[in-house]
């Protein structure tokens, strides 16, 4: 199953096409005015599937955040479409969850209130909301902070609450925009472990944007590399370090010779833009 990365084709084949496809990005381009300038995104084609954790790697300015904003529905693509389970996705809604770089919690709501917010918007009755919020808080280990306000929590706890809030609306895909880049190294590592565990439990499709090669190699089942001017996907491959059967711990992975080789080649590949 483990394929070695191919550093050649522009838009390589979807990796496991036999599963039911969820998210299709079809010929998406984005051009800001003036129109004669180079496009921010140029003909992006992408298929994301159930239970994939896709890391998008790229230098700053390669359009990875623009791609995320298009997937979320925040900005319309100049050309092309985004389809989720066959339906065109044009405006933001709870089928596409977003976790931001900073936790972005609503400061006037308690942690439980934040987690319940999406369900409230869906019109789920209060008792059920409370029950589900408690479940998701348990999942991220914040059951004791339920009644606290966001400003009373540390950075890592806030980001966990934000993840619980996004999962609580049961989205088809969760987009994460460099969610741990503002955290200190120790907290970041515990959050990375945490995301991998959450992913294993929930089997959600997660698209994770990062500029950290280590993070991409440790977390992902699949890696996309983007280049800038124009923003495009230049690599799309399964992470050879990922195995479905056993989740290896980070230290073991880091010591792996393959990890070091991949790290080197990815770094040089990203730097060669």
């Amino acid at each position, binding site marked *: 199953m483990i394929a070695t990365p191919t550093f050649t084709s522009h838009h390589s084949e979807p990796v496991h096409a036999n599963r039911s496809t969820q998210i299709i990005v079809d010929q998406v381009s984005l051009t800001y005015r003036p129109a004669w300038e180079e496009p921010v995104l140029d003909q992006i084609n992408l298929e994301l599937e159930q239970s994939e954790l896709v890391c998008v790697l790229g230098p700053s300015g390669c359009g990875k955040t623009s791609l995320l904003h298009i997937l979320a529905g925040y900005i319309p693509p100049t050309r092309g479409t985004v389809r989720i389970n066959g339906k065109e996705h044009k405006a933001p809604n709870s089928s596409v969850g977003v976790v931001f770089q900073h936790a972005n919690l609503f400061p006037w709501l308690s942690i439980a209130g934040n987690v319940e917010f999406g369900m409230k918007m869906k019109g789920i009755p209060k008792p059920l909301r409370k029950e589900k919020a408690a479940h998701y808080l348990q999942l991220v280990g914040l059951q004791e902070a339920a009644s606290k306000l966001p400003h009373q*929590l540390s950075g890592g*706890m806030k980001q966990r609450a934000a993840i619980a809030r996004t999962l609580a609306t049961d989205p088809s895909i969760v987009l994460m925009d460099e969610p741990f880049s503002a955290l200190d190294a120790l907290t970041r590592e515990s959050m990375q472990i*945490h995301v991998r565990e959450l992913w294993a439990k929930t089997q959600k499709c997660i698209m994770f944007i990062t500029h950290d090669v280590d993070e991409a190699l440790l977390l992902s089942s699949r890696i996309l590399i983007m280049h800038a001017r124009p923003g495009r996907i230049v690599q799309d491959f399964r992470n050879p370090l990922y195995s479905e059967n056993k989740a290896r711990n980070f230290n073991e992975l880091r010591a792996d010779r393959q990890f070091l080789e991949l790290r080197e080649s990815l770094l040089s590949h990203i730097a060669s833009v």
Partner: protein
Amino acid sequence: MRPAISVKEKPKHSRSIARKGVHPYIYRGISASAVIVAGLLWWLISSLHVVSSLFMPSPAEVWAAFLEIIKDGYKGETLLGHIGASLWRLFVAISIAFVTAVPLGILCGRFRWLQAIFDPFVEFYRPLPPLAYYSLLVLWFGIEDTSKILLLFLSAFAPLFITSVYSVQRVPKDRISGATSLGAKGWSLYIYIIFPSCLPDLLTALRTAVGVAYSTLVAAEMVAAISGIGWMVLDASKFLRSDVIYVGIIIMGVIAVLIDVLIRSAMHKWCPWTEQS
């Protein structure tokens, strides 16, 4: 299901704003002492008869006038009646200003064309001294409560409106994006996200608005009125009752401080996250 996180992080403790090493109550003590010293000076000056009691009645005289007004009222109206008349005008005007200026300001902050319609009018009348157009209002609506409430409404409207416009433009874009990704749209976005985001600014603006309206109120009652605490002071001055003037001024000051404390405690209760710097 076991909690999935292993590393325990300490929650932050809210920092007190007290300066290092000094108990915050010490400053209250200093303030209280300063007030007591000022009171003693007042008592000393008046009891030595340095100035005529017409200009500075003694604390005892003022206290006596206070008791007299409490007992008999002033010119056919009880003290509470005068205070109530003033506060009622203030309350009605501020309430109307809040429920009109805030929604309008929020909409103007979201839609530039709407702001373009209202901006010239607000910008024109805002710097005008309220008493300048008060004469017009009296001409149209008489010296009863209507003209006064309208005057207070206009003076409170501008700060609330301008703050709402400014505040809604400062709502983080990510917060609105995030809310839409959680399923909020249309009116629920305004009610559940934009309004609470603006609330800290709005309560600060409310403090300003109450301050402006309060000073306008006293001035308005001095121009044309038949009741109210401001009118009481003006009327007393016609009869050289300086003890009553002092009573009125002290009551006005105390009421203003109490209103401010009330709004501040509302801010503390509803927007505790803004107290963290």
